[in-house]
């Protein structure tokens, strides 16, 4: 057969041969049989040297054409088979996605820590710094600097934990609030003062659902030349909206604390019901949640720490992160906060 016809025939036969290959191995065999040394194309390629010189361009062109046509067939078949092979493998490798075959370790930040961080972040956003201080503290900072009368019951040994340490003149106790840190801060820093003070506090309370001998408090203090009562309200309103949601409203009710004048309690509108829903788990139908104590800093406090009450005014507040977390998450007992039961901790 003349080489050109042989090539034509080979090209004609090729699609069937290529299609017959159903695996990559068979396709390799098909490739040998179509383009290998012993194939029709191969034989023409080998015999090129023996051809008449005048024939060579024609046959050569035909040979290239045939080779390309077959290679193209092979290549597209190879893609098909590759895709099928890939699909087969992927199907075989399928796993049960509902099975937790590998579990990476999961830990948690304590809910109180999360709450403190969140509150701190809200106030940091308002330009507050975070102050810290000792937990074993001088009675002077815990009481005297904060305008607590000498005979105030909070000083008594059935309310406050005293330490058997040091000079009896400088009585040392476990701080009953984080407020002594505000006194220490003001002694060291000139106004304006915008600080929050998170930390642990101690009281002589037996553990039950509503009492802990050790708990946390976040104290806030803002002092400047022109802080007014409305600033206290606005600041706590901002806090309530950030923490409980933009729908929140606050109300202040007069109260009494030795270190503020006027003093107030802050209620925040219930985030759980639209207000006054009977039996609401959060507000009990009152529509308001009692949240924290606050007030305008008493001039005696300023005098005790060396600020001039004629020059500056300020407000202070103290909020319990445990209380905030209880309200938000429906935690009905304070015991959870000290048991460290991971079944509790990991929920948050």
């Amino acid at each position, binding site marked *: 057969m003349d080489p050109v016809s042989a090539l034509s025939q080979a090209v004609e036969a090729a699609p069937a041969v290529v299609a017959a290959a159903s695996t990559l191995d068979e396709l390799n065999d098909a490739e040998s049989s179509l383009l290998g040394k012993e194939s029709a194309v191969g034989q023409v390629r080998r015999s090129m040297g023996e051809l008449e010189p005048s024939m060579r361009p024609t046959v050569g062109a035909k040979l290239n054409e045939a080779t390309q046509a077959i290679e193209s067939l092979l290549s597209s078949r190879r893609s098909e088979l590759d895709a099928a092979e890939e699909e087969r493998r992927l199907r075989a490798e399928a796993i049960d996605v509902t099975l*937790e*075959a*590998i*579990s*990476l*370790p999961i*830990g*948690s*930040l*304590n809910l*109180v*820590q999360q709450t403190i*961080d969140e509150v*701190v972040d809200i*106030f*940091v956003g*308002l*330009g*507050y*710094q*975070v102050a810290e201080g*000792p937990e*074993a*503290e*001088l009675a002077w900072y815990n009481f005297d600097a904060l305008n607590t009368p000498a*005979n105030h019951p909070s000083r*008594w040994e*059935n309310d406050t934990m*005293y*330490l*058997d*340490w*040091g000079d009896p003149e400088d009585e*040392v106790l476990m701080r009953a609030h984080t407020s002594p840190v505000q006194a220490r801060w003001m002694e060291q820093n000139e106004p*304006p003062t*915008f600080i929050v003070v998170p930390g*642990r506090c101690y009281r002589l309370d037996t553990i039950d659902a509503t009492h802990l*001998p*050790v708990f946390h408090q976040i104290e806030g203090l*803002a002092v*400047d030349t022109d802080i*007014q*009562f409305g*600033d206290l*309200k*606005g600041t706590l309103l901002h806090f309530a909206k950030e923490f409980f949601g933009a729908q929140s409203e606050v109300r*202040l*009710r*007069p109260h*009494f604390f030795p270190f503020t*004048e*006027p003093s*107030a309690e802050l209620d925040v509108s219930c985030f759980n019901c639209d207000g006054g829903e009977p039996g609401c788990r959060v507000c009990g139908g009152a529509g308001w949640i009692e949240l924290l104590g606050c007030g305008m800093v008493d*001039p005696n406090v300023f005098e005790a720490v060396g600020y001039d009450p004629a020059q500056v*005014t300020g407000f202070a507040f103290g909020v319990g992160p445990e209380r905030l977390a209880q309200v938000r998450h429906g935690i009905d007992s304070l015991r959870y906060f000290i*048991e*460290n039961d*991971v*079944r509790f*901790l990991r929920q948050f």
Partner: protein
Amino acid sequence: MRVPLSWLKDFIELPTADVEEITYAFDMLGLTVDGVENLDIGWSGVVVGRVIDVAAHPDADKIRVCQVDSGSGPEQIICGAWNFDAGATVAVAKPGALLPGDFEITRRTIRGVDSNGMICSEAELGLGEDHSGILVLDGNPEIGVDFAELVELPDVVFDLDVTPNRPDALSMIGVARDLGAYFDIDHHVPPVELTTVKGATDIAVQIEDAVGCRRFTAREIRGVKMGTSPLKVRHRLHKVGTRAISNVVDATNYVMFELGHPLHAFDADSIAGGRLTIRRAQDGETIVTLDGEERELVPEDLIIYDDDGPTSMSGTMGGARSEVSASTTRVLMEAASWDPPTIMRMWRRHDLRSEAATRFERGVDPELADIANKRASALVAEWAGGEVLEGAVDEHPTPVSPAHVTLSLGEVERLLGPGFEADGVTRILERLGMEVKGSEPMEVTVPTFRPDVTRPADLIEEVARVHGFDKFGASLPTGPAGGLTPAQRRERTLRSTLASIGLDQAVNLPFVGEDDVAVFGAEELLEVKNPLSDEEAKLRPTLLPGLLRSVRYNISHGVSSVGLFETGKVFFTDPDPMDSRLPRQVDRLGWVVAGKVGPQMIGSAAQDADGAVSLALWRRLADALGLRDYSLTPAAPAGYHPGRTAEVTVAGKAVGFVGELSPRAARSFDLEGRVAAAELDMSPLVAPVAPVEMAAPSPYPHVDFDLSFLMERDKTVDAILAATKEAAGSLLERAVVFDEFTPEELGENKAVAIRYRLRAPDKTLTNEEVAPVREAMIAAASDIGAKLRGL
């Protein structure tokens, strides 16, 4: 304090009867409403009637036939009570009336005689316990009126939480005064009218402790006939939560609730020697109080004595010996003013929280003493008969005078903001009983019943309170430059890293007992002087006992693998470097891990939480904190596994230990198996670190080779790594230990296999360049006793 609306109406006419509005007013005044009780009428159809005639029943001798006029002529009613006669005014339940317990009154025939209703006892009306007879009404009420009016029903009682700075608000008049200011209306205080007879009490009073007793007034009432107080009074007392006892005692309580000044009535004939002396108690003395309890007195107690010893605990509770009784005819009415701290400590010491003590501890106005005394004496005379002697005792060793405070409007506005006027401020202060002269500044005279108001700031609080906290706007001041310090930010990184690698953050009580810490070798512990219990008497010198207890708690609740960390203070007995007046307190990080840890794969065994895990946690943490300059040295303090614990040094400073608990320490906390533990000082971990200078990753190929060394078991891998790294110099990119084992045939030696990677920053390394480096590394290892082993 419980405040019935009916009683309040004696002193103020409120512009609203709406309970919610009144509650809001109280809340806004700072008299927080803890509860509102609606007192309904428990019956219907009961009216006032007069008994016109009482006759024997023809066929029964325990009951009588009465003719009762309740507004529509005489009706016949059969009655079984004998405590009344014709002419008595009574409460009549007419046919159709409904008494408590759904008891309907009908016309019936009792032993052949018709009965058209019932004459009621207090018990039958649900008003009291008295079954002994029917209720005979006092005060001559009008026939036919609804009986409910006499006991002021229906009524609303507000339960107010009065803050400790407000002694004045523990009275109906004080509450009325605040409401008057809130609603901007008048309240009225009726003048006390006391009729006296000539003569003076012969009871002498001597105050030996003028600090404890600021004033003592006493007034004698003779010819008293003990009995019950008027129905309305008994029911008012009942509504405020006090039992009606007798006309004399009720008079003291009634005046206390009305004016806020507690009183005490002595049986004057029971005052031994006719003499009262006020002084502090002596050790060993006892008194039997009104409640029948015998109380041991301590030298700080302030006591009223007569010639036979202690006879009354001042300001808290009277004594049984001089108590008024049914046979009392001569009453000595005491209204005295006591030192608040003295009373505060005394009632707490004796667990005697009485209504009187609650008021005295806040500071009752001494100026009110004689007014209260006169009012109570007048009521005794009115309710129990008798004559009040003109000559009374009034010892007043330490008179108080009203405070004078200068208030400028500018000061008000500086604190409260603009919008106040002198007129408005004056009006508010005057409504609260203050006298105001002038307008700029205002010269304010504060009545003695407001001991809490002594400075401009206190007046401004009053202005704000009455103006209404709800009327202030809200503004938002911001600080000059906020933010966390670098150390505070790094503390957050530290905590979130530990949480992200599987530990849960615990918060433990920082108390320990000696037994908890003995295993950790702690000796001197900081002691609480007044602990809750022996187990909580010391402050922790280490975080580990708390963490271990919490791990144990979880295991005992079925959580078999637990990893907890805690950040918090530990306490020591030496002085704190920051403030030497305080004991040293150090912020620490601790962790305890028990059970299995790490990624877990179904079907494969997980890693035990051991020393190696602890060290892995440390390395991960150090990486997150960017701590590169640290070292680990084998060392273990008490309580740790001596072979599985390292001392951590950061920037040349020892910061704590990371490793595994000793089996004995673990067992002492009831933990079986291995327990990973660590405790580190926080401040060196979170101290800012110098920024890293970038090393450009080389684009050239690397050369890897493995070296396996044989070394003594107590030599550290770190030592080989350090020696070989130094020998390799800058070409060494990394060195990873990929095997470490101790086959028996090696005896006291262990094998360590390390894969080294060399790479040059500026060229492709050739074999000729690598070979001498490799030889130098082997030689360096050999110098520290690690021999190359055939791989």
